[in-house]
Every structure is written in C-alpha cells, then in structure tokens.
C-alpha cells in the first residue's frame, strides 16, 4: 500500500505541555485499529508557531490545519477525516471576526504575512529523522560549499546577503566570519550561542526543537569558511527537549558522514559538541560564554581582543546565534541576492519574533524586516486580548524598551528600533495593555538585570541596584520629584560605564518608559496613584453606592474590619485602616467595589 496521508502533530514545548504527545498516541492507536498504518503515517514535528491554538495537527496532502486538538477530537479526526475523508469542521480555525472557518494554514491571518526562512522546516519535518531534513534540501548547501566554493566565496556570499547577527547586536555576519578567517591559527572554533535567556523569547528553542540540522549545517558551513574543525553549541539547561533533539541530530549526522572526519569525502573535517549552560543570563554575552565553556564563571572580558582573534582556549573563535546559523543554508542555496531582496535597506531577510503577552494569538512569527509593529500585533497577533486598549510593546527583553502606540507604524529593523530607545534583541515581543503599569514593568526588568549582573563593573552592580531602590520607593508611594532626576542620571551613568552589553543596556527599560510614559511616573510620585491599578500600595478601594446591594459579604471577609454598613444598605470602606489586601474586591459579586 503506498503512503497516502500524513498527520503532522506539533511537538514543540508549548503543544507538549497541552498534551500533544497523548494526541499523537491516540492518532496512532486509531490508525492501528483501522489497520491503516501502511498508508497513513503519524509523526511529531517541530513547532508550528501558533502556540495559542495548540495542540496543532496538520493533515497532508489535504492541507487541513486542525487547532486545539484533544484526545476526543483526535479520535474523531481518525474516524471522520482519515477513514471517511470528511473534515472535522469544529476543529478548523475560526476567524474571530467573520466566524469563517479557514482550513488552510496559509489562509489563516496569523500566517499570512509570514515568510519562513529560519523556520522553513519547523512544523513540516520530523526533527528526529535526518532523512526528512535531507529530503527538504538539507545538507545540500554544505555539499555545494564543500565541492564548488572556496571559503572566500562563501564569506563573500554571506557578506552580500546582508545577514546580520540575530542574537541582538546585529553585527554583519559576513564581516565576523571574515575577521575570524583572517586570524592565523592552526586551531579555530565555531560556537553556536543557544543561551536564549531573554524572558519572553523562545525563537531559538523552537528552531533547535523543530529543525536542529539546519543549525548544524550552518555551523559546518561557517567552519569551512573560517577554517575551524570544531564547534560547540552552548544551550540552556532549561531546554531539555532542544538538547535531546540536538543530541539525536548530531549522532545521525555523524553516522551519515555529514559531521566528523572528511565530510562528504572531502578533506574538510568538522565536529560538534553540546555544552549545557547552568543558568546565567550574562552567558549570552560572547566573552562570558567563552569563559563558561572553559568551565569558569561567566564573566565578560574586555574587547578587544575580540573572540575572532583571541577566543575559546585563546584560539580564534566565531560565535553566532541559532537563528543566524539557520539562515545560512538557504542563503547558499538560493543566493545572496534572493536574501537581500527581502527586508529593508540596512536589515535584510526576516526576523523571528516570539509574540506574547496580552495579544490574542500568542506564538512564533517570522516576518520580513520592515514590517510594522501594527501589522505584527493586529494582523498576525489578532489584536489585544479581551478587547482592551493597547498600551505598549516591549522588544529586546531586559536590554530593550517599551514602544507606545504612536510608534506602531514604524517599519521595524535593527536601526529603527534602536532609534526608539529599544532594540531588536533576540526577538522577544511582549504586548502590554491598559492594565499594565509601566513603572512596574521597568521595575520587573531591572530586578532581572540586578539578579543577572555578574558584579564585575561597579556601575552595573551598584547602579542598577540603586535604580531599583528608587523604583521600589516610587511604586510604594514614597517617591519624590528628585528621585526621577536621580533615576535618569543613574541610568545614563550605568549605560556609559559598564563593560558589556548587559550593563550598557540594562537601563533601557527605565529610560524608554520614562521617555514615553512619564505621566505614569508623575502619577506615582505626585498623586501617589497607579493609573493601571497595579501597584498595591497605591491602590484605594471604593464602594460604588449605585451597585452595592448591602449583602455584607465584603464586610465579612475584611480582615481588619474597616467596611461598615447595615444589611441591605450601602456599605462604606473606612480607608484609614484599610490594608489594601483586596479581599473585598475579589469577594463582591456585584462589581460594586472598585480600586484606583
């Protein structure tokens, strides 16, 4: 019996947490029972990106995209779709506005404006089977490079493509390769930076889980270009599934002779080893990462010398991020001109963003550089959850900033985001609505930077701490106007006098929120109020007389007995003794208690 149908089940961390492994089992059982295992195959792929609607099951070649599949609907898919050829309507994505069912992945708004280069195979192939990667033109770029191109030609192609580092800095990849190539040494190293530590970013994880070979192939091509024989992948311990799939990929590639000695019968040898991080955000900085691989504390060192000259074990080393490597094979296969035709003048190609927060469609999107924030948040992301009002979008994690509504139409690339006081970063994009307090958000990121500062530079170690103390004061209602000036001055000092990227960018969340949301800071300091109603110590609870029915429920739960009133009469809160615990607010069934 020839194979007539394939069921692709998303095996990303998100869908697995929503039980996609069980869905896969149920599908397999159903197909076994119907004795169709010869003609229908069920396989687990990498992340489809549409985490909001997971678990995802895609049926090929019918090209039907099922969302939110559970055990029961999995059985139904077998019963109806696989056996009888009838589509299971209720599990097809429903466009919220028109209520139209959209069975094809490409017609769903979430996917419409996406161009998938780095994610080309995610959700299409079985990441644990090298043959599927090879069947999708995998390792063809490596073969072409080894047999038809000189290292200089490879570097030239990457330079002409305009590819820039996807880890955050945006340094031109080709120039980095060239610098490492020019360093004279018998031993050189390639490092893949998979220490994706930005809170709210999961692009690299998805690539490693969904298409690990694309990263290995990119690394091998880089190895050939700069003259390295060995590579390390430095990956976070928090990503067990990614590590597992990488291990499988490396051993399969070795077996096939695509890693190891004399690759594809040429005299080029290259092998890869995984190094597991131990939980330090700073290790995303390249010199800190090198120190960590060497077994030491992950503290950054002064540049120059750059890793391209003196890197791992004092040898020339080229470090690129996961997404950067994943972009390399398509550039070689399709040509530099193809890649540079996508994007803006100075930022070429696409960027993967992890869209999260208060947006309807949370997930992973790959979009051309130059797309606007509005398109990402409203067209792909489906707008703000619960019909609330958009307030800001945070890009670049703890190094980035918050961008307000008036800049939603900015075409985004490395340079426009920098100009807005934020940055591309590794691609985290967190949407915030009217219920988020921007002072509190700045505090959140600063707490992160304080925790993760390695302590080497005084400005970063002490300065961030002092800034955090000021923000604590402000959110507790004890802030004064001088504090705001002090905060700004400290922020600029930390930026100017820290050695590495962490310190140089850690004040960005504070500076950008002060720039765009100064009125919120003023409200905290002058009026001692939190407009978003987040900072507990500033909240005041009121009873709306028109809504209160006098049920006495609030008075009963109040731990300090400051709510007074007769049964069936309007109650009043005596704010003098109120400890702002919020119990009354949560208890009232009539929406009669409000806080501001």
């Amino acid at each position, binding site marked *: 019996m020839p194979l007539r149908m394939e069921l692709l089940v998303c095996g990303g*961390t998100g869908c697995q947490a929503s039980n996609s492994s069980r869905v896969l089992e149920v599908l397999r059982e159903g197909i076994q029972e119907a004795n169709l295992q010869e003609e229908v195959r069920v396989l687990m792929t990498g992340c489809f990106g549409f985490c909001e609607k997971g678990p995802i099951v895609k049926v090929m070649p019918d090209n039907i995209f099922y969302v939110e599949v559970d055990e029961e609907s999995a059985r139904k898919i077998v019963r109806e779709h696989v056996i009888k050829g009838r589509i299971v309507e209720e599990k097809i994505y429903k466009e919220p506005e028109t209520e139209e069912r959209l069975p094809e992945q490409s017609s769903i708004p979430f996917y419409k404006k996406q161009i998938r280069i780095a994610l080309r195979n995610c959700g299409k192939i079985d990441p644990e089977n090298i043959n599927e990667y090879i069947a999708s033109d995998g390792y063809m770029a490596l073969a072409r490079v080894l047999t038809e191109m000189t290292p200089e030609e490879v570097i030239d192609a990457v330079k002409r493509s305009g590819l820039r580092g996807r880890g955050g800095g945006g340094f031109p990849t080709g120039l980095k390769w060239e610098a490492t190539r020019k360093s004279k040494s018998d031993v050189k190293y390639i490092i893949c930076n998979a220490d994706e530590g930005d*809170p709210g970013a999961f692009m690299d994880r*998805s690539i490693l889980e969904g298409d690990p070979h694309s990263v290995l192939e990119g690394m091998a091509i880089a190895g050939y270009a700069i003259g390295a024989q060995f590579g390390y992948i430095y990956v976070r311990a928090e990503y067990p599934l990614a590590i597992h799939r990488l291990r499988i990929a490396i051993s399969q590639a070795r077996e096939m002779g695509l890693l190891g000695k004399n690759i594809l019968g040429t005299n080029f040898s290259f092998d890869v080893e995984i190094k597991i991080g131990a939980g330090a955000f700073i290790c995303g900085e390249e010199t800190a990462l090198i120190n960590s691989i060497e077994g030491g504390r992950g503290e950054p060192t002064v540049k120059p010398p750059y890793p391209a000259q003196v890197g791992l074990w004092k040898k020339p080393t080229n470090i690129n991020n996961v997404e950067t490597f994943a972009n390399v094979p398509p550039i070689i296969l399709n040509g530099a001109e193809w890649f540079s035709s996508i994007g803006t003048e100075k930022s070429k190609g696409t960027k993967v963003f992890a869209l999260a*927060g208060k947006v309807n469609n949370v*997930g992973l999107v790959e979009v051309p550089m130059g797309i606007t924030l509005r398109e990402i948040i409203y067209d792909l992301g489906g707008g703000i959850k619960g019909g609330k009002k958009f307030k800001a979008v945070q890009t670049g994690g703890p190094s980035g900033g918050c961008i307000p509504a008036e800049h939603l139409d900015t075409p985004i690339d490395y340079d426009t985001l920098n100009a807005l006081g934020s940055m591309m970063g590794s691609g985290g994009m967190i949407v915030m609505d009217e219920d988020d307090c921007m002072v509190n958000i700045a505090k959140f990121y600063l707490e992160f930077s304080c925790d993760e500062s390695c302590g080497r530079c005084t400005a970063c170690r002490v300065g961030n701490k002092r800034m955090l103390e000021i923000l604590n004061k402000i959110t507790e209602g004890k802030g004064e106007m001088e504090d705001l000036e002090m905060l700004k001055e400290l922020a600029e000092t930390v930026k100017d006098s820290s050695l590495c990227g962490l310190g140089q960018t850690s004040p960005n969340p504070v500076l950008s929120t002060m720039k765009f949301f100064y009125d919120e800071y003023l409200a905290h300091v002058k009026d001692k109020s939190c407009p978003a109603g987040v900072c507990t110590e500033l909240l005041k609870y009121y009873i709306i007389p028109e809504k209160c029915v006098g049920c006495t429920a609030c008075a009963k739960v109040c731990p300090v007995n400051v709510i007074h009133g007769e049964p069936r009469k309007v109650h009043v809160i005596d704010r003098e003794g109120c400890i702002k615990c919020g119990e009354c607010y949560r208890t009232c069934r009539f929406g009669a208690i409000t806080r501001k």
Partner: protein
Amino acid sequence: MAKYDVDEVKLRQLEEYIDSIEQKEGALIGVLYKAQEIFGYLPKDVQLFIARKLGIFAAKVYGVATFYSYFTMEPRGKHVINVCMGTACFVKGADKILEEIKKELDIKDGNMSKDGLFTVDTLRCVGACGLAPVVMVDGKVYGRVKVEEVKGILDEYRE
C-alpha cells in the same frame, strides 16, 4: 583520602565519573552538574573534593558554584516546583501563583516545605509563553495555571 563529611558511596560514584573524563580542563561545570545529580545539592565537602580531584583551587569551585543559578548549596525537597517569572508569565500574574503555592505549602522563610517534600523556586522563562503563566514540577509543564488550580497540582505529588 582525606575524610569528607558526606555519603561515601555517593562520593565514590562522583570519583568514578571524574576519573572517566579525559579532558579535565574546562570540565568543572559538567562535574558540578554530576555532583548535584548525585547528592541533590553541593555540600561544602563535595566542592572541596572536586577541587582536589581536578587540581584547582576550592575558591574557584565555590566561585563557579555560586555564579550559576542552577547550582544550589542547600538540600532540596523531593519535588522541585519552578514558577516561571518570564515577562509573559509575569504580566499574566505569575507572582500570584507563587504566592498561592507558598501559602498552600506554608512556606514562610526559605523555599522548602517543612516536610521536605517540595522546594519552590522561580526561573526565567521556560519559553512556553503561549501558555503563560507556567509552573513546572519536576520538569513537567503546567500551562495557563489559575490560582484555584494550585492545590490540585500539588496534590498530584502528595501521595
């Protein structure tokens, strides 16, 4: 061999592992991983042992062990609960989930429950932002956790 105030069998196990490493240079973090896997945490004497075995200063071992958040010098509970404090989880109320867990386990100081069954910790983004807020218990991910569900989740591990 100098006397170490730790379980002898476990120490032997660690020694075998260290002896099996060919390239000892740069192996420290890997060794600490193994040690924590065997002992559950990194007692002082284990760090001393590692330093002597690898021929490096104990200060270096201590320096590395304290630098990375993965390593702990305190004994841990039987089950480790991690509340994700990444941005997506934070804006969706992860702090309230953490509060509820601590309340439910009656943890006031430190992060281990008195019966030694649970350790509660936070971590920075597990990358399952689509499911925020996220709680991990012994590596199993619970998504879109609500305050009222906390007890049910903990009960799964209480038998």
